[in-house]
């Protein structure tokens, strides 16, 4: 017998037939389809018991209460906390995406030290020893003022601890980023004396005259403003929006009044003039006017006649008059300053002129009005223990009044003015105008210590990174700010154990001070931050800990308020946009893009329109009339005195001819492929201009030109 072709054929056919009438085929067909339903690379989230943790969001100055849904102890979703008196339920997209910050690929997972331009992980002990060594030398050399510190704000116990640290150390150089709160404090201080700030009762006002304030685009406490805006429609309250671009706020307003960018102060001055001329101011409140009301009146009548201002602002004289009169005649009018989100570059003159409108109507410290209230002082810090070195250092003259001024000074001076810089919760190398210059200034500082959770632009320019826990992993008191009418202090609480080897910044400072020893140690005589916090807020700790928040003040502040016209009566100069090109570039605040620290989350970036970012290209808004033959969607080179960028055009009938709008908060240059490397950072096209009166950067825009790329 010979094994031939047919034998093999038999073998094959037999095998096929045998398999065919066994369950193999059917079972494998079914199982392979089930395999596709359970691909091992598609995650299967574990189940567990549902619990809720409560905390306060610190991603922006809005300070919303949040509720964190946890399953099996794992946080899975952030939502607004229904009972929290700032947001009363609801949350903005950034807060809801908060868990993405917790697990952000950019989280700094362990302390880092820069060595030859590269970061190496070190232990916490090494990091603290390293920083303490550097600081010890400064004090030993009787040079403590060479330590500077930049924090986002001056409110709350953590910035307070930095101030405490600086004072005990002996340096006056603690400066802050420019927030809406800092502008409001400056304004209140200028008009009503030190120790004051402003709040706006938008919830009850019946006529809101907004000078570009993005009421529904992130201004102030965003969710509170959204709610106030929704309520306004139901109450029948009016909103007049004055800005060069049809923002969402303008689109939802009762009236949109387009204005030439940067002329808001002129308009407000002219309106003050009208109110004074027409005798539409509140005589009772005017009794508290000081510092030369008549001089102010004479000045505005002379310098800001309506016809002239109409030409400057591009608003007809009739409209100016009508608006001013409607405003003055409203029962509860509020004029709101702060273009966009109100942070970054603004102008004290503008703020003061707008707030003067409020003062003239007399709707101050009344329901539905503007609240001139004391700067929050709920923290009982003990006096720092200072030795001779500290006393001498602290008494030295402050280098700068603000972060941008400090950076400009460092950039401009040849000698090293700052030896060591602390940065906390701020990203000046991205958010300040001209971040390239800021980074260069950082290069000049021999030792930058960054307290940060994320490897952002400033972290990359730092020498030591001390990774801090996010607001979901630690305790912190969070006072409401940014124009919020009342004062609510919330308690951010750990809803999850730190995901990485991170610490609370308070704990780090205490540890650092103790390592330095001596009076530093004495000044920080707390075992840990939680104990420290408890001792700082004796009056409200129980509320904070039990309810998660404490309402410190609510409703209009009591007492008469005096108003000082001295500053405005001098008619301080208006900051003009730099350059001499025909067009003017202004930053746009877009609710879906975070413009300060931390950067947007992947979810937030996902919601950004393809008319803002396409692939990695940045779009700028322009009126088709301004385009001059250029095409919608076409590439152009946008040039300003500070630099140039290749961008694409987005034709928008809702922007004033002659104006180019660019969304703020994009063009990050750190290593996160979901968020960074997309678009252009508008700050790179604008150079800072320090306003003489405020010491803050007032470069709201810049002259620009476009040409086909």
């Amino acid at each position, binding site marked *: 017998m010979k094994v031939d072709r047919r034998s093999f054929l038999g073998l094959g056919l*037999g095998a096929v037939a*045998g398999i065919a009438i066994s369950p193999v085929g059917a*079972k494998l067909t079914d199982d392979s389809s089930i395999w596709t339903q359970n691909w091992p690379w598609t995650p299967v989230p574990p189940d567990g018991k549902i619990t809720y943790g409560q905390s306060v969001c610190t991603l922006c100055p809005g300070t919303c209460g949040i509720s964190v849904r946890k399953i099996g102890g794992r946080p899975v979703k952030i939502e607004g906390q229904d009972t929290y008196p700032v947001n009363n339920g609801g949350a903005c997209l950034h807060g809801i995406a908060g868990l993405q910050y917790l697990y952000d690929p950019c989280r700094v997972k362990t302390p880092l030290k820069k060595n030859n331009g590269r970061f190496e992980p070190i232990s916490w002990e090494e990091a603290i020893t390293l920083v303490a060594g550097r600081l010890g030398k400064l004090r030993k050399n009787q040079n403590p003022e060479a330590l500077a510190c930049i924090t986002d704000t001056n409110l709350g116990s953590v910035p307070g601890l930095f101030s405490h640290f600086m004072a005990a150390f002996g340096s006056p150089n603690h400066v802050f980023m420019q927030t809406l709160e800092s502008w409001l404090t400056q304004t209140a201080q200028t008009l009503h004396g030190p120790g004051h700030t402003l709040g706006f009762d938008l919830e009850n006002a019946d006529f809101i005259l907004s000078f570009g304030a993005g009421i529904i685009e992130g201004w102030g406490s965003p969710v509170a403003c959204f709610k106030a805006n929704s309520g306004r429609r139901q109450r029948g309250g009016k909103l007049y929006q004055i800005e060069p671009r049809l923002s969402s706020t303008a689109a939802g307003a009762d009236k949109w009044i387009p204005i030439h960018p940067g002329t808001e102060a002129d308009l407000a001055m002219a309106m003050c003039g009208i109110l004074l001329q027409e005798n539409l101011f509140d005589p009772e409140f005017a009794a508290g006017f000081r510092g030369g009301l008549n001089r102010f009146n004479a000045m505005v009548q002379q310098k800001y006649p309506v016809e002239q201002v109409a030409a400057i602002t591009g608003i007809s004289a009739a409209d100016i008059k009508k608006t001013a009169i409607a405003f003055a005649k409203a029962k509860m009018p509020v004029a709101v300053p702060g273009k966009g989100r109100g942070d970054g570059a603004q102008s004290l003159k503008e703020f003061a002129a707008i707030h003067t409108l409020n003062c003239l109507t007399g709707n101050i410290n009344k329901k539905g009005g503007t609240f001139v209230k004391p700067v929050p002082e709920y923290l009982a810090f003990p006096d720092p223990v200072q030795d001779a070195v500290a006393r001498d250092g602290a008494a030295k003259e402050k280098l700068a009044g603000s972060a941008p001024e400090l950076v400009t000074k460092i950039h401009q001076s040849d000698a090293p003015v700052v030896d060591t810089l602390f940065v906390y919760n701020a990203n000046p190398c991205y958010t300040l105008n001209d971040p390239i210059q800021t980074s260069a200034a950082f290069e000049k500082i021999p030792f930058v210590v960054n307290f940060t959770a994320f490897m952002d632009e400033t972290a990359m320019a730092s020498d030591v990174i001390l990774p801090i826990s996010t607001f979901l992993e630690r305790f912190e008191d969070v006072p409401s700010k940014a124009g919020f009418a009342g004062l609510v202090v919330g308690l951010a609480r750990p809803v999850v154990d730190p995901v990485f080897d991170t610490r609370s910044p308070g704990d780090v400072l205490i540890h650092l001070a103790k390592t330095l020893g001596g009076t530093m140690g004495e000044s920080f005589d707390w075992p840990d931050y939680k104990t420290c916090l408890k001792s700082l807020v004796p009056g409200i700790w129980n509320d904070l800990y039990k309810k998660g928040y404490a309402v410190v003040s609510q409703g209009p502040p009591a007492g008469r308020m005096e108003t000082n016209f001295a500053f405005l009566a001098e008619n301080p100069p208006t900051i003009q946009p730099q350059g001499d090109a025909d067009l003017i570039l202004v930053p746009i605040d877009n609710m879906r893009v975070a413009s300060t620290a931390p950067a947007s989350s992947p979810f937030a970036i996902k919601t950004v329109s393809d008319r803002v970012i396409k692939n990695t290209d940045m779009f700028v808004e322009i009126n088709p009339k301004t385009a001059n033959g250029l095409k919608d969607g076409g590439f152009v080179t946008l040039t300003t005195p500070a630099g140039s960028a290749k961008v694409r055009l987005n034709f928008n009938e809702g922007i004033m001819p002659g104006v180019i709008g660019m969304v703020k908060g994009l063009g990050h240059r750190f290593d996160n492929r979901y968020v960074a490397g997309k678009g252009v950072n508008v700050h790179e096209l604008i150079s800072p201009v320090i306003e003489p009166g405020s010491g803050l950067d007032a470069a709201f825009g810049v002259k620009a030109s476009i040409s086909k790329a």
Partner: protein
Amino acid sequence: MSEIENKTEHGSMDGAKESAAEDPKNDTGLGLGVIFFILAFLICFLSGWLLFPKLLYSKHEQPFNFDHALHVQETGDCESCHFLREDGTFSGIPKTESCLDCHTDEPMGETEDEAIFAAEYVAKQREVPWYVYAKQPDCVYFSHAAHIKAAGMDCVTCHGHIGESTSSRPYEENRLTGYSRDIWGNNIWGITKNPWDSMKMDDCAVCHEEETGHKGYCFQCHK
């Protein structure tokens, strides 16, 4: 008749002649072919029915033996350990923490299994990675509350007499799908004698149709 058919008729004659000429050789080849055929058929047929199911499933021993009967005796019912939470969700397999409500004696280790539990999980503060025989795939939403509370069913109806077992049988997992063999596959014929022999969608549907008059919409049982 068409031209084609004419032609094929013609062709076939050639073929018939040729094959006839090769007859003797053909016969042995065919005979061997038949033997090979039968052999291959039997091997494949039998391995398809007997070997294949064995190969398809991987066996896992539980981390340690669990005596359900003993626990039921001590606690009295299933619900002491497998209960509905206040929000109506089902707690499933107890966490180590719940076990320690009763296992309070120090040191533990009355039995060998308790000793493993104490040493490996209690001491190390770990959860026991039990294999769950009735584990449904992730796409399935199952409400114990609906069945226990609203339909008044008891555990045995679906889970069988697991409460009477004194030892944990090995968990069998389909290598391809990751399904527990209890969900589908205990019987390769697909014959189920008891409800707990199979827990695929069709099995749910049978009962749902009887009890509610409708098999249900996608989201009723899927997520």
